[in-house]
């Protein structure tokens, strides 16, 4: 039901340029909307002034009628996306804060991933839900979760994220092109971060393929979103001390690129998981479990840097800073293994 339509848009084969994570998201949306007229954006305030996080600047003007503000009712507008996706469109939904995802848990857990299955494979469900999460913004307890692991336990759903501008462009485009429902997590603390982005059709990511952000032979760090960015800074710092850190951004949390991490671990023997979430029930815990089940050899027990288990994210700025893993904390943890 969802074959790629002919499009007037020429193939994109741009060079690598520096852009912000926000611009990379914007470019991915624009390029997919240009290449496929079935792509529509919906969400709260998405068409107003570029959207709350300015990721949609220029899109309503470039694609009239294809960027629509919804009422505040996540469960219903994500359920609508299912109806749109099985009748010829490829909706992209923006969820303003990941903390709002639980209001749409029925659509995300019960409907999107189950629909194709329980109808005996009658259709595909090409829906992308972009969800903006993460701390450091002083947004308080109900606007700061990454939410990245809340939905990794559901067959039928794809869960993705990106810790760099280049990743955001490549993964978001892949998500929109994918035939199955994808939940794509962005981090609002990264929007202003700059990095190289290859704006090209052949830069589109492969679903399930993680990426090595920095190569190293001493310790493997696996980190997502803002933590990937901080892990890279920590790796730079540690390089000055002669510690070579490999930093992996898995990007896809379901399916997870276990072979990529396993082969890195074979070389380094040491693993640090850095996650902006509690460890219980997250991709980090699942990764360590799956490596263990696969017989991976750890030269030292793996270490985890994450959110504390006994407190929630507070507003008070110095306290928020204190609980979200810092570059220094990540570096110190790696030093314990070296």
């Amino acid at each position, binding site marked *: *039901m969802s074959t790629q339509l002919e499009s007037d848009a020429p193939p994109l084969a741009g060079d690598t340029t520096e852009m912000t994570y926000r611009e990379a998201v914007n470019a991915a949306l624009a390029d997919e909307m240009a290449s496929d007229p079935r792509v*529509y954006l919906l969400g709260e305030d998405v068409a107003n002034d570029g959207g709350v996080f300015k990721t949609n600047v220029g899109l309503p003007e470039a694609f009239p*009628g294809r960027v629509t503000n*919804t*009422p505040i*009712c996540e*469960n*219903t*507008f*994500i*359920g*609508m*996306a*299912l*109806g*749109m*996706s*099985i*009748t*010829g*469109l490829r*909706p992209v939904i923006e969820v303003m804060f990941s903390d709002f995802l639980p209001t749409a848990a*029925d*659509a995300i857990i*019960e*409907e999107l991933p189950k*629909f*194709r*299955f*329980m*109808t*005996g*494979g*009658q*259709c*595909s*469900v090409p829906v992308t839900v972009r969800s903006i999460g993460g701390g450091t913004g002083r947004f308080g307890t109900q606007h700061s979760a990454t939410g990245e692991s809340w939905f990794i336990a559901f*067959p*039928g759903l794809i869960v993705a994220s990106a810790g760099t501008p280049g990743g955001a462009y490549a993964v978001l485009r892949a998500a929109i092109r*994918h*035939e*199955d429902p994808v939940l794509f997590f962005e981090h609002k603390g990264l929007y202003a971060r700059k990095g190289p982005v290859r704006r090209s059709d052949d830069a589109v990511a492969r*679903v399930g393929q993680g990426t090595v952000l920095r190569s190293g032979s001493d310790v493997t760090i696996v980190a997502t979103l803002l933590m990937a960015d901080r892990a890279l800074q920590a790796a730079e710092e540690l390089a000055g001390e002669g510690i070579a850190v490999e930093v992996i951004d898995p990007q896809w949390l379901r399916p997870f690129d276990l072979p990529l991490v396993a082969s890195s671990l074979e070389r380094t023997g040491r693993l640090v998981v850095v996650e902006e979430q509690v460890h219980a029930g997250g991709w980090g815990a699942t990764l360590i479990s799956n490596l263990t089940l696969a017989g991976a050899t750890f030269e030292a027990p793996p270490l985890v840097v994450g959110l504390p288990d006994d407190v929630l994210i507070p507003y008070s700025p110095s306290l928020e800073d204190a609980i979200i893993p810092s570059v220094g904390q990540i570096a110190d943890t790696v030093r314990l293994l070296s």
Partner: protein
Amino acid sequence: VTATVETRISWYRRMLEIRLFEEKVQELFMEGLVQGTTHLCQGQEAVSVGAISTLRDDDYMTITYRGHGHALMRGVPMEACFAELMGRSSGCCKGVGGSMHFTDLDKGLLGAFAIVGAGLPVALGAAYSAKLQGSDRVALTFCGDGATNIGTFHEALNIAAAWKVGIVFIVENNLYGEYTPLRETTPLDDLAERAKAYAIPGVIVDGQDVDAVHAAVATAVARGRAGDGPSLLEMKTYRFRGHSRTDPGKYRPEGELDRWRERDPIVLLGAELASTGTLSADAQSAMRDEVQGLVDSTADRAKEGPVPTMEEVRSYVYAA
């Protein structure tokens, strides 16, 4: 809108098909060929037949876990329905979905949902999709009285009204949300009143009268097709059986079921067809026998369907 004689005879037959299908499901349950749970619709047939007969082939609809009648009326083959109930890969959902998920996308039947209220946003999305693509297709979405207390009902009515989407919301008010009488959970007797909150037409319809259902839904469908937006129709109806297979319906006051049986939609239409000389009692009886034969032989054929393999079922999880 006055239906032709032929049309009304066909409605009578379609209601009989649904009734005898549901009775057969009960039998197959006792034989162990249908397992788990079923939510049967005996007593509510006029809603399915009257409403769905207003649609074009390219229109959309979503239904609920009490959806056998709607699926049959939409033209899902009876054998595929029986086979689905028996978990066979010849079923309309390859035996994966079972009783609560009768779906046939080729017929515009965009899903049957086992979560109360879940079908409304999906139907709304389909109708909105039609609008975006410049089509005048409409969507019907069926829900029960219980669904009018869940968020998606209100959220979907709100968006449909705000954006003038071509959708018809049909509430089958059978007086009970599962085992609980409506009045214990809801401050209204007439759920059509809820339309006022969304500035759309709200119409109370005798859900036992197939002509009345057809006329009301036809008006609402025409309104949606013309781009004038949604309607909320409340069908006053009754299920003759309990909520689901294990429910004997003992919470119903004495005499209530008998009173509603007097308003059996098949009996009502049958009496009228007989009194006007359109279809005699003998002809009705012959038709019943014929439909019973069809139901029995179709169920027998469905029993021969293959059970799906785990490999088959696994391939339905992801499209890519």
